[in-house]
């Protein structure tokens, strides 16, 4: 027997106990659980174990190799930080869902076959829906419903893909699939929904900001990154991913700059950052995959850190619109400090996690001589700094003083500890990247701290900072502009941005409304009395074609009486139907 437990089991079984514990014991338990899982990880030898023979197939619950290990490490670290951050929380739904969610993500990462992957995939969708739902406001309940609909759709695509894959190859193993044929297309589509690949990305900024303070922190880490893992495993080197990734990066930046809600800004930033990883996977060389994996590692650290600081602000002020915040640096120095570390990290300042990881992807593009990708990635780095690195901290903590004086002492101590921990990790990875590089799937010969790289990166950052402060007044949301001679370029830029973003946003809203609200509601209406609904539908058509007033009235009455009582079929109908079927058979036989 093997000497370790699959970490997914530790979390999932552990989650079941949470509702029964109280007070300090519960806090300790929640923090110990990821620590235990971490020790367990250290003990996992490479290879496949925990194999369950399920009828004809083998389910592999622990396929351990370097690619799965690097994601497992960061997931466990994230769960640890998240548990600390959530220690004050008393809502059992959130805590149980969060642990279930982390556990199922680990399950996906260690799944050696497509079926157990699918099982954990669905648990993940369910648990994360609970996290969105847990805020229990009208908006979050609706968002949770839309969220689960999108993920059920994604799961459905994945299931269809897996079924076709099994029918084609006869094997359930999850290895490099590569985009060829319908089966892999469906699987890719299923993964793409979770990776929030544009245009399947609208669910992310829709749902994440509606979640609770704790929920958003967990959400930002797991769903997209498990999808990055599955893409890296199954679709490394699929060229289309490179272009999709670039689209995600640009889309994320544009919308993050336009957005006002701080957690929504960060959500768009998730899409943007995942775009970098997807580009890396699309390039598919060893260096690029390393880059994607290490960037996922660093990104979880700093995005969670940023989400935590946004959560802390929300916790104290109850507001999340940047236009309503500002000047918080006076009373929330620690949060500001940690936030700045995260911001520096996401923008890739030297000595932080972002610097040592993101540039790997750009270098991979450089080595492969995919010039346009390299250029776009470099430009995008500036954009990231603009929206996440400066915009978020500036408008929340500085900018115009909003007069809010939240007392940081009222913030639960554990939240600050969690932020401190992640800030430390960000810097650790930045200062001592070899530690992370050793974990990566392929041997790393990459050296981040060369003179031209450091200088180049600093130049890039300084110029975009300059650009930010020069363009500051246009970046403020909800402020009217004063007209002047600079109208043309100022307005022009604005119109250009609107031109790009408005149709996209409009289509999303319409599509989302029709697919996720209108159609389900109609389906529910019809299901109340299918036959009656069909009758009303038919008479609707008739009335609209040639309807007099009486017919309209009759229709209205029918609609009002709906669903009414369901009609019972008489047995004579049944006998006649049986006879009809009999006759059909006979005619077919004798003709």
């Amino acid at each position, binding site marked *: 027997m093997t000497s370790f437990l699959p970490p997914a089991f530790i979390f999932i079984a552990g989650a079941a106990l949470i509702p029964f514990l109280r007070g300090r014991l519960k806090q300790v338990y929640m923090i110990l659980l990821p620590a235990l899982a971490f020790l367990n990880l250290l003990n996992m030898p490479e290879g496949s174990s925990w194999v369950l023979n399920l009828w004809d197939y083998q389910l592999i619950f622990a396929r351990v190799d370097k690619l799965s290990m690097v994601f497992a490490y960061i997931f466990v670290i994230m769960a640890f930080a998240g548990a600390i951050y959530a220690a004050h929380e008393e809502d059992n739904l959130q805590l149980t869902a969060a642990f279930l969610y982390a556990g199922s993500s680990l399950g996906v990462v260690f799944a050696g076959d497509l079926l157990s992957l699918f099982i954990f995939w669905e648990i993940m969708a369910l648990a994360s829906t609970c996290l969105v739902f847990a805020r229990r406001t009208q908006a979050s309940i609706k968002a949770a419903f839309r969220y689960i609909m999108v993920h059920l759709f994604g799961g459905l695509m994945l299931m269809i893909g897996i079924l076709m894959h099994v029918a084609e190859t006869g094997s359930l193993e999850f290895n490099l699939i590569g985009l060829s044929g319908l089966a892999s297309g469906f699987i890719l589509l299923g993964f793409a929904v979770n990776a929030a690949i544009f245009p399947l990305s609208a669910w992310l900024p829709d749902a994440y900001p509606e979640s609770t303070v704790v929920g958003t922190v967990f959400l930002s880490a797991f769903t997209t990154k498990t999808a990055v893992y599955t893409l890296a495993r199954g679709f490394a080197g699929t060229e289309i991913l490179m272009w999709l990734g670039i689209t995600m990066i640009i889309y994320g930046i544009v919308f993050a700059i336009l957005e006002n809600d701080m957690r929504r800004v960060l959500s768009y930033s998730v899409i943007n950052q995942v775009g970098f990883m997807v580009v890396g996977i699309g390039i598919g060389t060893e260096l690029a995959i390393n880059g994607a994996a290490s960037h996922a590692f660093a990104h979880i650290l700093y995005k969670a850190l940023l989400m935590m600081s946004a959560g802390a602000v929300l916790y104290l002020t109850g507001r999340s619109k940047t236009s309503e915040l500002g000047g918080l640096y006076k009373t929330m120095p620690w949060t500001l400090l940690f936030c700045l570390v995260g911001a520096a990290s996401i923008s890739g300042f030297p000595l932080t996690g972002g610097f040592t990881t993101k540039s790997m992807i750009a270098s991979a593009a450089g080595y492969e001589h995919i010039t346009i990708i390299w250029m776009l990635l470099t430009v995008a780095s500036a954009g990231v700094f603009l929206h996440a690195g400066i915009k978020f901290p500036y408008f929340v903590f500085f900018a115009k003083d909003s007069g809010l004086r939240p007392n940081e002492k009222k913030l639960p101590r554990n939240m600050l500890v969690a932020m401190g921990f992640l800030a430390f990790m960000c810097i650790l990875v930045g200062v001592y990247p070899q530690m992370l590089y050793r974990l990566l799937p392929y041997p790393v010969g990459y050296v981040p701290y060369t003179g031209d790289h450091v200088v180049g990166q600093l130049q890039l950052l300084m110029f975009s900072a300059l650009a930010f402060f020069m363009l500051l007044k246009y970046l403020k949301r909800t402020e009217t502009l004063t007209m002047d001679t600079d109208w043309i370029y100022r307005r022009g830029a604005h119109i250009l941005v609107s031109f790009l973003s408005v149709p996209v946003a409009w289509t999303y809203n319409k599509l989302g409304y029709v697919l996720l609200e209108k159609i389900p509601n109609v389906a529910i209406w019809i299901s109340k009395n299918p036959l009656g609904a069909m009758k009303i539908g038919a008479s609707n058509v008739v009335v609209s074609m040639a309807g007099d007033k009486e017919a309209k009235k009759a229709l209205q009455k029918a609609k009002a009486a709906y669903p009414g009582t369901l009609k019972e079929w008489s*047995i004579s109908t*049944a006998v006649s139907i049986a006879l009809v079927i009999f006759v059909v058979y006979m005619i077919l036989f004798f003709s």
Partner: protein
Amino acid sequence: MIKHLPALLIVIPLLAAIITPIIGRIHWVLSWYTVTITTFISFVISLSLLQTVLLQGDISYWMGGWQPPWGIEYAIDNLNVYVMIIVSFMALAGAIYSKNNINVEIDEARKPFFYSVYLLFVTGLMGMVVTGDIFNIYVFLEITSLSGYALIAIGKKRQALVGAYNYLIMGTIGATFFLLGIGYLYLMTGTLNIADLAARLPEFYQTKAIFTAFTFLVVGLCIKLALFPMHFWMPNVYTHAPSAVSAVMAATGAKVAAYAIIRVMFTVFEPEFYTLAPFNIQPILLILAVAAILAGSIMALAQTDIKKMLAYSSVGQIGYIVLGISLMSVNGMIGSLIHLLNHAMMKGALFFVVGAVVYRTGLTSIENFRGLGKKMPLSMAAFTIAALSMTGVPLTVGFVSKWYLAVASIEIGMWWLVPVILLSSLLTAIYFWRIIDAVWFKPALGEESHGHEHDDHQKPKSNDAPASMLIPTLTVAMLCLVFGVFAYAPVSLAEKAAVILLK
């Protein structure tokens, strides 16, 4: 003695059915003991037959020592031993369950008769499964049907009489069709033994008499099976019959009819028949199956009475079974056979739970299920598991059968069936979610108003069903999970059966 086990399978319940009402005169509980012991013996015999079939191959038992084409043969192979175990197990579970359940749903004086008819019903089912003679199938079919009508009508509800009457008409037409089909077969071949028929039929495959025979047999059995759109008798029957009866009929009656269809379509007639037929027979059954799957799920959504909802959901599930049959491939047949097991388990468990709710509250509307999670936690846990299995959640047996059906339909190039299967799973999830949501997350009716104040100190008392009802319910529900994970045993048996059937 061991040699005569196949005959004892029929003889013991038949004799016990005669004794039951007599000793029931002393006290009705004695008849319950008789039934439980008898069905238990049947179950044990089925298991030992399974062992024999697995170790020594097919069994051929000659009734009264007469050699097969002339005498009646009981032929047992992988297929019918599989169905036999499902039937005898569910009959046993139903018997144990009925002890307390019928207290509220059947008059005191009728209890011994109920048990007598119950045994006849089981006899008929076991007979249909075990026999290797097609006329014998008809005879046992009639025994099952007649005792079935009585079982439905024996309850306290007056509406049950109408349901039973409708069933009587439809059932008789179905059985008559079946008999006419047999008549044509006998006319052409001069034999009634299934193995003998299978050997003699091929030379007549192109004749009109055989076409007619096939049509009569299939349509007749489809009526008995309640395949959409010939299902009209079923919802009322399941709704108004006593819950124990609904459970056992849903779990066994439809299964045996499905078994008979498989036997007729793939043993009496051989796959060659379908290639020689003047038109492609497959699409008709396939279309009916797809219509059944979708219509059953949609109709189930519209119901407000839980028993009726379960009945319509059975219409959909029967669609799955027929779907697998109509695919005419090994994986499809495996899917179909696993779904037989699956549906027997989960529909049995669901009706058991509904019976327990009726026992405690006397009501069957879905509204009434609100807040039951706190009052009847164990029953509701069983309900939830069965509902998950019905939806086809991985690690339940429902997933295994749907998996095979989906793989089979992709294999033969009908990939459009996959969305149908998944869509219907989604619909299933929706109509069960309504109930699960009401059970676990909503306060009970009439308790919302003063809920908050006494949240802490006035927890609703757990008032679960009595043990004699809980034990079979939970066992069956757990089996949904057990066979979902350790599906190897039923799948390997089903695979052997499927390979033999489709050669």
